[in-house]
């Protein structure tokens, strides 16, 4: 029996790639860059499996281009907004993803970003490089905001949101709030109170977005949302860029409607170098490094490879997307 043909839209770490190459014939985009749409459409023709990660779109057009042979789609991510899940389901194509194995790394990035924003590390680092250190501007030089006795609001208390809360606990957070569609059983482990989105915005000193994307929450963080937040509040987003209306965020930061923001995700990615958000001292941006540790990326690659291969064999996936 010949090996099934698969398309890999970006080569994963060696461990994962090795597993795929062992049992499949691989067509891959092997260059060090994002795949272009036309390359994707060309690459998937006649394949049985697609191995991808965000932002490589696997939508109706890609599924059509692949044709009837396509059985198995596997993404090296926990985010699924780049995949048309409904179409895949309708066509009987299995879809696998990588929750869990990237939770620790992503929660850690979220906390790093929060602390870098609240303790003004970007400004501090610049002051060291450009001589600002030593010519202090005011008596409370680079004094930042502390987590001690604060209220932290987590928008989306899923795996990552919960892991973030666990990591923030020993910093002396006084209260955890969370919002979302439903209450979560595990909220009692961190004494988090389930509240409305508005109440979370009004009461939180730190608003941390950890939710997954869907049609309903695109642009959730807009002018209205920022206006409900405290002037002293800090906003952190490590979910998806489209959760935020970036013009409104810029206005809110520039006008002092909120204190500061830390973003690991933007729209688009990469964010253009001349984007106005870059000019703000109170906006820290990192290039989507949520899951960027050796350990997490290897684990994601392996799990995604196993998902792909199981789908090709018609077996149960180790980690299928929620139905």
């Amino acid at each position, binding site marked *: 029996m010949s090996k099934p043909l698969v398309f890999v839209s*970006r080569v994963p770490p060696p461990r994962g790639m090795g597993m795929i190459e062992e049992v499949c014939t691989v067509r891959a985009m092997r260059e060090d860059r994002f795949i272009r749409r036309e390359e994707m459409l060309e690459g998937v023709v006649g394949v049985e499996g697609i191995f991808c990660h965000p932002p490589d779109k696997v939508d109706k057009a890609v599924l059509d281009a692949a044709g009837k042979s396509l059985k198995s789609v596997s993404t090296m991510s926990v985010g699924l907004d780049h995949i048309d899940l409904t179409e895949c389901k309708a066509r009987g194509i299995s879809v696998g993803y990588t929750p869990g194995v990237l939770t620790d790394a992503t929660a850690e990035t979220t906390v*790093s970003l929060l*602390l870098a924003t609240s303790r003004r590390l970007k400004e501090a680092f610049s002051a060291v490089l450009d001589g600002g250190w*030593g010519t202090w501007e005011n008596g409370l030089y680079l*004094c930042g905001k502390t*987590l*001690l006795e604060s209220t932290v609001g987590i928008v989306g208390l899923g795996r990552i949101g919960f892991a973030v809360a666990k990591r923030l606990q*020993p910093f002396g957070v006084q209260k955890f709030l969370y919002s979302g569609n439903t209450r979560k059983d595990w909220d009692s482990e961190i004494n988090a109170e389930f509240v409305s989105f508005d109440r979370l915005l009004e009461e939180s000193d730190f608003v941390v977005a950890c939710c997954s994307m869907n049609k309903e929450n695109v642009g959730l963080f807009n002018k209205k949302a920022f206006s409900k937040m405290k002037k002293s509040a800090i906003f952190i987003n490590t979910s998806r860029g489209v959760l935020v209306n970036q013009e409104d965020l810029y206005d809110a930061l520039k006008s002092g409607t909120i204190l500061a923001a830390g973003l690991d995700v933007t729209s688009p990615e990469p964010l253009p170098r001349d984007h106005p958000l870059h000019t703000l001292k109170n906006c820290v941006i*990192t*290039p989507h490094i949520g899951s960027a540790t050796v350990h997490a990326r290897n684990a994601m690659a392996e799990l995604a490879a196993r998902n792909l291969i199981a789908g090709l064999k018609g077996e149960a996936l180790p980690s299928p997307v929620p139905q």
Partner: protein
Amino acid sequence: MFTTSVIRGSPKLTRDLYVLISRSLFQKSSSMSSQKPKVYVTRRVPQDGLEILRPHCEITQWDSEKPVPRDELIRQVAGKDALFCLLTDKIDVDVLNAAGSQLKCIGTMSVGYDHIDMAECRARNIPVGFTPDVLTNATAELTVGLLLATSRRLMEASQSVRDGGWGTWDPCWMLGHGLDGSTVGIVGLGRIGVAVARRLAPFGVSRFLYSGHSPKDEAKEVGAELVDFDTLLGSSDFVLGCCALTKENQGLFNKETFSKMKSSAIFVNTSRGGLVNQQDLYDALVSNQIAAAGVDVTSPEPLPTDSPLLTLTNCVVLPHIGSATEKARGAMSALTGKNILSFLQGDKMPCQIK
């Protein structure tokens, strides 16, 4: 000295007379030359401490953001009863001599006191107050922030966002070292060291080690194991300098020390710049003998902008902002004011260096 027992049971007239006499005597004795005690404050500081001192003392202040120049300090301490200083002020024999024998006490707005000649102060019976505890949370928080900024390459990553490095994304790009499953070695498990360990625990650290002179009760809280310095260096993925600086540990982190660390290790220092031989640190980083370093303290401070450390992508340097929150700085100022005033009023300092 008056005692109230003499007056107990006396008629009201005598008691009122006692109150009148003792009040005027207190005013005299609390200001040796019929005025309030003189306090010199060496910088512009949060008002909290000044508000405590002002009603009872005559305050002279170097009202600037920048450290008081040495000759000005020498000039101004003369004839003062108390000194309210910062870690940037070297309080040595020359300063103590310039102050004169009427100098009663010193309060430093810091928990570190390596800038003060404690032996001289003890010999002259000058108690020195400091500010432990009130800055512990802020400093531990910053230490963890610095560790994560270093291990997760935040400064490098955010730089790439502006300079075009972000765009050639790849699953193996900008990878950092996670804390999960790691061994963290804390050199000096004092108040700050323990507070740091507490904050790191939920990141999945698998083992805490510490080194120092003696076992600490607080170690049990995070299950930290006391080991010798070399064992800590050889076993740790993260090595944290959280100890006080003393004569004995100047330059503790040197060529030999770095050579004993793992090549994947990350070094974080938030204690004092003097703990580290900076040339040796540079050499260790540039040769990848260790993976990266994050320091909030340097020698000198500020670090000159042409320091070779600043050319390295695997070195994060912050401008000594460990205790930089309004809450902590206000509390440090207040405690320093209290330390000084308490002693001037004949009471114990809330926080005196032993």
